[in-house]
């Protein structure tokens, strides 16, 4: 889960609530008791995060399986 996975079109995304463009930042992503800080696009005011499809259906599934078999 690196920056390249997470940020194909950085400036295109806008948080509708805060009317602010998303910015790269550290977000905690966890599963089954494990937690990792990941660079993701997120709204700097409300914290709303953007998880792209490739990340959710790719790396995240891999990590989920790994942690489930741990």
């Amino acid at each position, binding site marked *: 889960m690196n920056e390249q996975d997470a940020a194909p079109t950085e400036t295109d995304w*806008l948080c509708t609530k805060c009317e602010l463009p998303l910015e790269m*930042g550290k977000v905690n992503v966890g599963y089954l008791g494990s937690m990792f800080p990941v660079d993701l696009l997120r709204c700097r005011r409300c914290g*709303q995060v953007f*998880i792209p499809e490739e990340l*959710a259906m790719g790396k*995240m599934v891999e990590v989920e399986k790994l942690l489930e*078999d*741990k």
Partner: protein
Amino acid sequence: MDQEELGKLEARCIQEQPAACAAACPVHVDARALSAAVAKGDFASAAKIFRKSVPFPGIISRICDHPCEAVCKRREAGEAVSIRAIEKACLDWAEDFRDTGIPLSKKDKRVAVAGGGLSGLTAAFDLARKGYSVEVFEKEARLGGSLFRFSENDLPHDIVEADFKVLEKVGITVKLNVSVGDDISLDEICEEFDAVYLAPGGESDEETRGRGNRLTKALRIDLIDPLTLAATTPKVFAGGSIRRPPERRSPIESISDGRRAAISIDRYLQNVSLTASRIGEGPYETRLFTRTEEIEPLPETSMADADRGYSMEEAILEARRCIQCQCLECVKVCEYLNSFGSYPKKYVRQIYNNLSIVMGHRHANKLINSCSLCGLCREVCPDDLHMGLVCRKAREIMVKQGRMPPSAHDFPIRDMLFSNSEKCALARPQPGTETSSHLFFPGCQLCASSPEHVRKTYSLLCEKLSGGVGLMLRCCGAPAEWSGRVDLFSDSLSDVKLLWDQMGRPQIILACSTCYEIFRTHLPEAEIVSLWEVLDLLGLPEPAQNDPVASRVLAIHDACSTRHEKHIHESVRNILRRIGFKMEELPLSREKSECCGYGGLMFFANPELARNVINKRIRQSEADFLAYCAMCRDYLASGGKRTLHLLDLVFGAPIDSAAQRRGPGYTLRHENRVRLKNMLLKELWGESAAGEEYYGMIRLSISDELRELLEKRQVLDSDIQQVIDFAERSNTKLLNRRTGRFLAHYKPAAVTYWVEYTFSDGEFVIHNAYTHRMEISEEAKL
């Protein structure tokens, strides 16, 4: 599962048992491995295998009485493999290589061997290699004893001499022309040595008996322990021809006795138990089962020159006749067992390890969760090993340990809970009655796949049966049972039992084979009957009889959960016969039927495997399939196979469209259950439908292409509606300024759903949806 239980399970898988030839061989030459090496032209490896078990290979490959060939399974498809001739070819065509092994450090104990025949020399060789000082006393002027009764042609003297060279290498002292009993007494020998092996050979049968008697005056031959070869006199062991009548003398048995005596003497001198763990010495019968029915019969390979023996090419041909005995009965019929590349003995060990480890990667989770639990393995196993029971127990343990991967069965469990929710579940007596003699339980998957069949069947049953036919719409709890969630299953079963009790404990009519199995096993107090038995008994509705298209052949796919329900198999076939269909029995049917890929939740834990299972099954016949379980029908149809449900025929559905119908997707399956309940409430009890969730009003537009993807991702319309509902009410969404599309996410329980959408003409156009289970922290950073 404890160590003892594991051991018992492992022992029931016979795949690792030796081949019949190796078991029958007194020294257990692995003729199967030897043949496999020769078949590849690898004579050197083959010779190594042979030498490992036989101290004098040149001799044995010429004069062995080969008990292996008498039990060779090839006899069931042609003649026995000529094992001895192949052994000889190994030595003829392999580069000469004699490895006597590295002798252990010298021990201070001395052993005397009386008799320089095969038995005595084998014991001497084995003991010398273990580091003992060994002296062989031979009454003749040369070693070999009765070997010299063979003709020079059958056993050339130079072969004997060459084989005996190893005796020098291991440092055995040989005393020729010394007869124990005559030239030196047994008492003297016993005095001088720490142990004695008596293996007196003889030039003639008479002499063997005479010499034996004379030598062993102090002994009782009949009191030699057959397990250890210990005589009644301390430190004396005896074996070889002395133990056998002349007509039963066997070179390979003599060698086996020598080897057995060497083990005993070694143990005696080390002062350890002579009798502990001595199983597997000497000939025995293997437990290995090998099916030979499908093996093409082949005659023995002939020799161009009988005196020379097999040429290389001939030996290779003959070795290829070895069928490489193994069992794998279950692996041959089960795609699941086959797909993990091994066999149950290994699998139960992997499963045990998986359940036992405290830290580290659990490699067997997928193995445990992929099994359909169908029990076909037990049907074909010579020792009734049931991997389904092992896997289900393992799942229970994993759930108890909190080690079950949350993603493995989450979706089908939620599906079950949905079926048992207020939206779908229903339990009522027949309209206008208070009591029920019968209760129709169609099962959640028939409701999901074909609500119309449920409606028609219920109406038929009400018409044909008196005493009141109640109706119960819900799930039997199978997904919970299959996934090892004991508590959830128990709760679900209690609910069913309570409702059934309240209805006055009517006879339960089951349309689903899985429900039948679940109730038969877990609700034994209930009288149950399959819908097919009822229809067989009551007769069919009008349109089903004399159907004009009913002349075609249907291949019957029996539901795996009915494998031991012969009466159900018969009723299904009776119904088909009555309608007028011709029937084809699949190679694996009735008690040996295969699972469709739904059983045990295989599809959810391992969709790729389930698709292979479906594809393998549907290729077994060109004919249209007939299933009598809604899930079997939908799964087989999902592989593109024309498949009918028995109710399609009972109610006279148009054959082609019914056979080609793809089963509904997950969303529609949910909706079908809800609609069925609401429709029946309205039609039969005159009640209005229960209120829909407010988000259910959100109108969606989803392309067929995307719908297929959502199906794979197990995203329901209701999941999408919940995301949009949340996003629009809370204004928590993202806008892509380039595409103008919104993206929002919502996590109703364990899964986070993401939906990309636009709004147009009063409906939400869905462009994409995806999920993850990892949790994201979205606290504000300001």
